[in-house]
């Protein structure tokens, strides 16, 4: 092969490569913007949370149990935690980690349940940093899906479900 022909071949390949790059870059955003990027449904947790609040447990709805718990005792919280644990474990969230919390109008946050074992707060607080982190995770609201329901006294109660990303 002559050197001219080799040069032509290299230039031809370079131009072909350039055409492919331009086409890929040019059509890429069109495809993605129109048909992929906009279709994002993050409604799973919200739908679950709505249904969870409407679930009947014995003669009460979960929403009522949460509202009653504001003025309730340790037993009412235990019942609520137990019922919540059963419902969330049954649903499972495809093995993803989750935590369910509720904040009352006075700012008090109550931990209801989480995916991991030993998820209920210990009655005897330890003082190491890991425990502090865990306490924070249980006693402060995060960035999960939130639904507001009325309080029996007045004001609003925030129920939050935080689920690990897929």
């Amino acid at each position: 092969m002559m050197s001219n022909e080799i040069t032509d071949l290299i230039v031809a390949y370079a131009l072909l490569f350039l055409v492919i790059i331009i086409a890929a870059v040019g059509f890429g955003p069109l495809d993605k913007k129109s048909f992929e990027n906009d279709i994002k449904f993050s409604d799973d947790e919200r739908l679950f949370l709505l249904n969870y609040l409407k679930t009947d447990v014995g003669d009460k709805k979960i929403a009522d149990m949460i509202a009653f718990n504001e003025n309730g005792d340790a037993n009412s919280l235990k019942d609520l935690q137990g019922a919540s644990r059963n419902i969330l474990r049954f649903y499972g969230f495809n093995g993803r980690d989750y935590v369910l919390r509720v904040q009352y109008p006075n700012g008090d946050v109550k931990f209801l349940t989480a995916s991991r074992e030993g998820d209920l707060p210990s009655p005897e607080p330890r003082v190491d940093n890991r425990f502090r982190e865990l306490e924070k995770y249980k006693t402060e609201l995060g960035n999960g899906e939130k639904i507001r329901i009325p309080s029996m006294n007045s004001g609003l109660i925030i129920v939050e479900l935080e689920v690990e990303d897929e």
Partner: protein
Amino acid sequence: MNRKGSFFLAFFTVVAVFVFIVFVNMNKEKILNETKIVNVGKFSEVSINATLDEEEIELFLYTSMEYASFNALLKLGNDGGTLKEQNCEGISEHVIWKDNCFFSDNLEENFFDRFKDLFDGYVKEYRLDEVNIEWKIDEDGNLVVEPDGLIELGYENVRYGFEPDSEYALDYDFSDYNKILSKANDCIKDEEDKGVTRNNLFENCRNDKDFRWTIKIDGRYVVFDVAKMYKNLGEVAVKFALPYNQ
């Protein structure tokens, strides 16, 4: 074709592809419309979010009506069914039912006055200012409260509106006030008729199966708390005092 011509053709091809892509991108919306390709993702997302928002608001409104009803019945009972602005004489935080101070003729309206205050507090905090509340008596004779108004929600260039359709039927018979007064008068009369064997036990009231009676004597009055369970929310008591000849 000579070598110069080949280079020109190749270079022209690259430029042509580039120009075509720029053209397609600039006319994207037009092309999508002409080829009837609809950007379904965006509308589906808005539609799903709107449905969930509506569902959440309906749940909030229903629960608010439920709790406001319960609390309004409690307040009405604590005031012995008297009007809000009525200043009646009381004893041990119980209204004395005598002269003009009795439960009102229109207990439904009287209940609704208290209910509305509580309900408005909830919706204001939720920022649903466009919601009003009304009451009616349904064909079964129950008092029903229902929200009224158009709730509008906004999503990127899309507005979605709906009229709330949840209504709440009160499970309370306001004629209970008359029944309670009549029973309390009978019990007091029975007690007074006992004469020297009077023991202040008001047996007929205490053994009543329709209500739970708590009765105390306070000076020249009998103080009553007459309670009944309201749905699963708790007991609602009518509190009042009646004169008693010791």
